[in-house]
């Protein structure tokens, strides 16, 4: 529920902002900002004005522009626009005066309050910033009001602020800019008042994205666009199997290519450093490397599935155990049993990963779309042999991530730093991956197999559910390994072990497979497969009980479950089921948000084809309904892409997909019409970046079952 604090004491406020009682930082920027630091706004940039920092998150220029410091990554989720709106709301600013810029890496000021380190993930950008940014906006407003009161010699209580104008009934009025310097010298009052949500004028509005202009005119800056004088380009040759080591290298032909400066061997492979990308790529193809495969993972997908299925037959660590699932199933008249298979998936963000490294004088500047700033800072420092304070991260837009940029070992950042360290000539070096590097680079959504058994009693209610899975844990052997408890990695079983379906005998077991293929969180993590298992299996139980799948679910959900509201809304909005085709539903909770989806299929030339997707979401208080819709559309298409086409497969330990011809992703003609509806709520805001993903594939599979009687248990699958 919403922890709404109408009043916050100054001490709490300072704690939230990480400020000492000494007060506020006043600073100014002398020189015009360079490319990564250019504030992003919908308006044309004005010349750099003197900026007053009213707190860590709010800077006000003499030209009235308010710049919000965004501590989160922006790789599409739109959180930069949402976070800016939260500040603008409490500040009573006019939307047209708002801009934002990326925060530097600074864990003391800019930690994710839900993670304890600076980083973006778990759809938490809005959720963890909500209180912090409301306080920042309200605090900055209080300072401006105090400054106006002092200058006009009137009581604070008589000052009003609206749409960027501070005024008094005497007729005196001012913009923010003219009072910013004086405000920065004011002391915060004992109490800072937060707005009553019923008075919100910006929060809840479908404001267009602030980065809409720069992302349509070619000006948006990504890692791959970064440039410094004297910069060189690096590309990497990595072993063809994970875990292999370089045995012998003949780089004579590559070195002879004109424009190649250096070829260096680093922990992760061999790097070519050249004057430009094309030259580097040409030289890379001429490298003759021999690899030592002794410690490499040599199994292919077929062998891995075989080994997983063997393990699936044995009992594993227990993630949840209510009642007596096994005994109940043993005595059940008609138990239902299904086995599932999920492949490895690549994130394949549109921008191939890369990072510009400027390492000199024992200090380094990194330019890239950072996602786990604190982790990357530590990894870069360790790689370069310098202290963490000497690592500056200059964040730029990320061309997609879906989890890929948040690597516990900072893989590509470490790779770039190790090249910069190994290079004899200390110039700025930009590492650029190509699509093959991306698809062969590991860090996949882990493959998994599942065996699920369940039963329905004579009264039509489910009596038992027993879910056992085999899946790799990417937290194992990572700095986050302490999150694994009693052999159970909670991210592996999320969406199943924590389900709120009321089934008296409920058991979940998980085997952590040991495989030499690096894996990682992939947009919605464990929910990607567990929602599919749960929601198709529940559908199968409803079918076995000869019940309507929606009513069957509602009967299993507790009265207060927020899944009920989204399921009912989605079904209501979907209207009549299609004639002759099939309808499927799924409802799932992830990252504190609740999403239901209804998929309708029609028969076209004897084949099922997608008619539409209807989606309902409950994510608490909505900052920007248009961005909520946009994230649902995005999640649906991302999930549809995976369900119908994506799989990373291995042969003898080598990835078989090298580009988008073999790694098949969704394209525009196959994208269905999507309708999104939002459940009104006054609960604290939760995320939307991931929760749109989990329900789509099971709803689609359930629709296919309704249309054809075919139960899908292996991904990816086809409609026809």
């Amino acid at each position, binding site marked *: 529920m919403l922890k709404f604090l109408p009043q916050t004491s100054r001490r709490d406020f300072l704690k939230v902002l990480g400020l000492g009682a000494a007060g506020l930082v006043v600073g100014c920027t002398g020189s015009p900002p360079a490319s990564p630091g250019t504030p992003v706004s*919908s308006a044309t940039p004005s010349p750099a004005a003197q900026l007053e920092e009213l707190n860590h998150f709010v800077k006000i220029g003499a030209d009235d522009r308010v710049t919000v410091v965004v501590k989160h990554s*922006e790789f*599409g*989720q*739109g959180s930069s626009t949402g976070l800016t709106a939260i500040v603008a709301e409490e500040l009573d600013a006019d939307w047209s005066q708002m801009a934002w810029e990326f925060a530097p890496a600074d864990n003391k000021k800019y930690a994710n309050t839900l993670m304890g380190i600076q980083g973006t993930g778990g759809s938490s950008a809005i959720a963890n910033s909500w209180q912090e940014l409301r306080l920042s906006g309200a605090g900055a407003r209080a300072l401006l009001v105090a400054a106006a009161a002092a200058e006009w010699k009137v009581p604070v209580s008589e000052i009003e602020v609206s749409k960027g104008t501070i005024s008094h009934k005497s007729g005196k009025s001012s913009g923010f800019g003219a009072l910013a310097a004086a405000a920065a010298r004011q002391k915060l009052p004992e109490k800072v008042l937060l707005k009553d949500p019923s008075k919100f004028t910006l929060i809840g509005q479908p404001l*267009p*994205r602030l*980065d*809409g*202009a*720069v*992302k*349509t*005119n*070619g*000006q*948006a800056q*990504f890692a*791959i*666009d970064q*440039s410094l004088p004297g910069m060189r380009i690096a590309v990497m040759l990595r072993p063809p199997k994970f875990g292999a080591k370089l045995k012998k290298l003949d780089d004579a032909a590559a070195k002879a290519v*004109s424009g190649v400066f250096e070829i260096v061997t680093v922990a992760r492979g061999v790097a070519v450093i050249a004057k*430009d*990308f*094309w*030259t580097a790529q040409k030289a890379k193809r001429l490298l003759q490397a021999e690899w030592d495969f002794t410690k490499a993972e040599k199994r292919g997908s077929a062998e891995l599935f075989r080994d997983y299925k063997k393990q699936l037959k044995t009992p594993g660590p227990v993630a949840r155990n209510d009642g007596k699932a096994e005994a109940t199933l043993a005595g059940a008249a008609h138990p239902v049993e299904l086995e599932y298979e999920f492949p490895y998936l690549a994130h*394949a*963000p*549109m*921008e*191939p990963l890369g990072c510009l490294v400027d390492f000199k004088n024992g200090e380094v500047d990194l330019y890239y779309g950072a996602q786990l700033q604190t982790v990357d800072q530590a990894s870069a420092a360790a790689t370069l042999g310098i202290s963490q304070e000497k690592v500056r991260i200059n964040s730029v*837009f*990320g*061309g*997609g*991530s*879906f989890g890929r940029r948040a690597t516990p070992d900072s893989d590509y950042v470490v790779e770039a730093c190790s090249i910069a360290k190994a290079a004899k000539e200390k110039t700025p070096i930009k590492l*650029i991956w*190509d*699509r093959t590097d991306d698809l062969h680079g590991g860090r996949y959504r882990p493959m998994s197999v599942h065996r699920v058994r369940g039963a329905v009693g004579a009264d039509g209610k489910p009596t038992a559910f027993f879910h056992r899975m085999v899946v790799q844990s990417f937290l194992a052997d990572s700095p986050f390994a302490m999150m694994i408890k009693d052999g159970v990695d909670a991210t592996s079983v999320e969406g199943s072990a924590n389900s709120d379906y009321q089934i008296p005998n409920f058991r979940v077991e998980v085997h952590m497979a040991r495989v030499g293929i690096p894996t990682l969180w992939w947009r919605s993590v464990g929910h990607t497969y567990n929602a599919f298992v749960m929601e198709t299996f529940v559908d199968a139980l409803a079918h076995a009980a000869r019940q309507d799948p929606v009513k069957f679910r509602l009967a299993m959900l507790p009265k207060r479950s927020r899944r009920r509201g989204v399921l009912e809304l989605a079904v209501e909005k979907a209207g009549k089921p299609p004639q002759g085709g099939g309808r499927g539903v799924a409802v799932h909770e992830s990252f504190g948000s609740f999403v239901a989806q209804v998929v309708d299929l029609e028969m076209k030339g004897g084949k099922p084809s997608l008619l539409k997707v209807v989606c309902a979401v409950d994510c608490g208080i909505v900052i920007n309904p*248009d961005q909520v819709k*946009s994230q649902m*559309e*995005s*999640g*649906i*298409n*991302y999930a*549809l*892409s995976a369900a119908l086409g994506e799989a990373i497969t291995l042969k003898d330990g080598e990835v078989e997909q090298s*580009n*988008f*011809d073999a790694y098949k*992703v*969704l*394209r*525009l*003609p196959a*994208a269905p*019409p999507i309708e999104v509806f939002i459940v009104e709520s006054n609960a604290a805001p939760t995320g939307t970046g991931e929760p749109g993903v989990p329900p789509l594939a099971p709803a689609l599979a359930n629709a296919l079952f309704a249309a054809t009687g075919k139960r899908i248990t292996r991904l990816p699958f086809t409609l026809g």
Partner: protein
Amino acid sequence: MSKFTITVNGQPREVEADDDKPLLWVLREDFGLTGTKFGCGASLCGACTVHLDGQAVRSCSVPVSALNGKPVVTIEGLAQDGQHPLQKAWAELSVPQCGYCQSGQIMSAAALLAKTPQPSDEQINQAMSGNICRCGSYPRIRAAIHKAAGSS
């Protein structure tokens, strides 16, 4: 290495490059026009789409030596101040998410509208199927093309 003169966004520009260097990398690295993006290098994703003599082409697969004097237009030169009806519709409908694919999407859509001012859904499918958006902004791309078509 040879010398080439290329007309980009109405300006003749000179470059010394390997004959097989793709136009994409000449634009990005030699001319600093980084709005055109690299996504696959193999004509599979559309991120590098520019106009060559008015046609949408994948600049990652056009060697600089194959231009034959044909003029090139990139996202930076599509319209003054980024005010092409498509660019306006794109920003108004908040089409971009990460934004990385969008230069290519807009260039493909602009080539379509130049030939077919009022495209049907089927014509949009045809023209846009070579452009991948991993963020799944497809419904809004379709809507923005219709919107721009209505206003142009």
